[in-house]
């Protein structure tokens, strides 16, 4: 079969348009690559992690945390508190945030759940951990899926020359971060990484990190433990400095 119109020319504007598209594609700058983890430039972190108070009880520069469950039939306040406390402070050296930076991170669990305290006392508690079925109003859709961290009350830190947060809230969903097993431990440590200024940096797998690990739903399989990696600890030390 022959083409009766073989050899006819396209209107001039047609190839010109494709050339313009090609040129535009070459000239438009690409977005910056994901910043490699760790991210020492992050200043979105809890204020008290810069400072320490010596003593055998929670001091003004330590990090107190309370725990609250929205469904105590699913997980009671006390069992949630015991699990968070164990994960953060009792799992052994190299596996807990507690004690990092010569005790500039010094975590203390309160004896009661968060809402049991009057406002003025609750204001002295730096971190609140909330267990629930759904935090999409705070963490984004879909319903019941995401865990997240929300910083609150930014305060000028004259010594550091930046704003950091007086308080931080960790929201855990029962389906993942709110589980009382090693999956839950992984999410607790990941979210506390956000409290202490770490970013996810998903897509950049080196160095190994809990912040972008498959353990917490990200794509990097080179750190499969529920506790922070050595580079995570170093990253938080960098933020403290």
């Amino acid at each position, binding site marked *: 079969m022959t083409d009766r119109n073989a050899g*006819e020319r396209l209107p001039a504007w047609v190839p010109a348009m494709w050339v313009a598209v090609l040129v535009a594609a070459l000239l438009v700058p690409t977005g910056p690559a994901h910043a490699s983890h760790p991210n020492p430039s992050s200043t979105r972190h809890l204020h008290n992690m810069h400072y320490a108070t010596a003593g055998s009880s929670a001091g003004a520069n330590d990090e107190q945390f309370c725990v609250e469950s929205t469904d105590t039939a699913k997980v009671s306040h006390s069992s949630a508190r015991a699990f968070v406390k164990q994960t953060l402070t009792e799992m052994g050296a190299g596996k807990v945030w507690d004690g990092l930076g010569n005790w500039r991170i010094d975590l203390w669990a309160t004896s009661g759940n968060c809402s049991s305290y009057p406002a003025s006392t609750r204001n002295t508690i730096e971190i609140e951990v909330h267990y629930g079925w759904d935090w999409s109003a705070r963490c984004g859709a879909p319903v019941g899926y995401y865990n997240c961290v929300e910083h609150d009350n930014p305060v000028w830190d004259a010594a550091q020359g930046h704003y950091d947060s007086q308080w931080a809230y960790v929201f855990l969903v029962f389906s993942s971060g709110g589980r009382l097993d090693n999956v839950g431990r992984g999410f607790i440590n990941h979210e506390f990484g956000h409290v202490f200024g770490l970013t996810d940096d998903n897509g950049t797998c080196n160095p190994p990190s809990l912040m972008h690990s498959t353990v917490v739903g990200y794509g990097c399989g080179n750190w499969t433990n529920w506790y922070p990696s050595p580079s995570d600890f170093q990253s938080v030390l960098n933020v403290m400095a």
Partner: protein
Amino acid sequence: MARHSLRTRLLTTLTACLTSAVAAGAVATAVLDRDPGHDHGDHAHVDTTNGLLVTNRSSLRMCVEAGADADGQAVHTDLLAGLEQARRDPNWTGAYGRARFSPATALTSGCPAANLPDRVERTTVAGPGLTDDPSPYRVWIYVLDDAAADRILGVGRPADVATAELMREANSTWPVSTALLARRSHLADTTAVALTLRTALGLVRAHQEPAP
């Protein structure tokens, strides 16, 4: 009229569609990017190096929800007196020294998406909450009559602060605007207003009372 091959017609139609799409996209972008309420048009990012907290603000501005029955001018006068005293805080220069500030433009009547909570407690959000397009207002001031103050703040409590707007970056959210909820009678005490404003501006920590 010359007849064209199917291939030529397809290529011409495809190119015409592409041209139309590019033109429509350019027009939509030009229209949607206009935002006269902001200092400049760049996409905002969290910026913790100064008190304005986001990159799309260059001046310190606050919006005021004074209520329908309130004397708006008197409210502004009281707030400006407190703000003048708050600016003597030793942290002011570090936190807001680079920001533009003018008493004449610092306060705006009405907030863009006022949202009073039923009651203020630790994790309350009093404003639009999560956004990727923060307002020009660093502080959102809600002036409450006694009945509303008793209900929202608690009986007899003069004032409190909460988050008004937050931005999400790297899977954590950071407050970029603070709500200040104040009982109307509280505004008559300039020193007390100054302390409340210093808290809302992040110059001092929120009130703390150690457990007994």
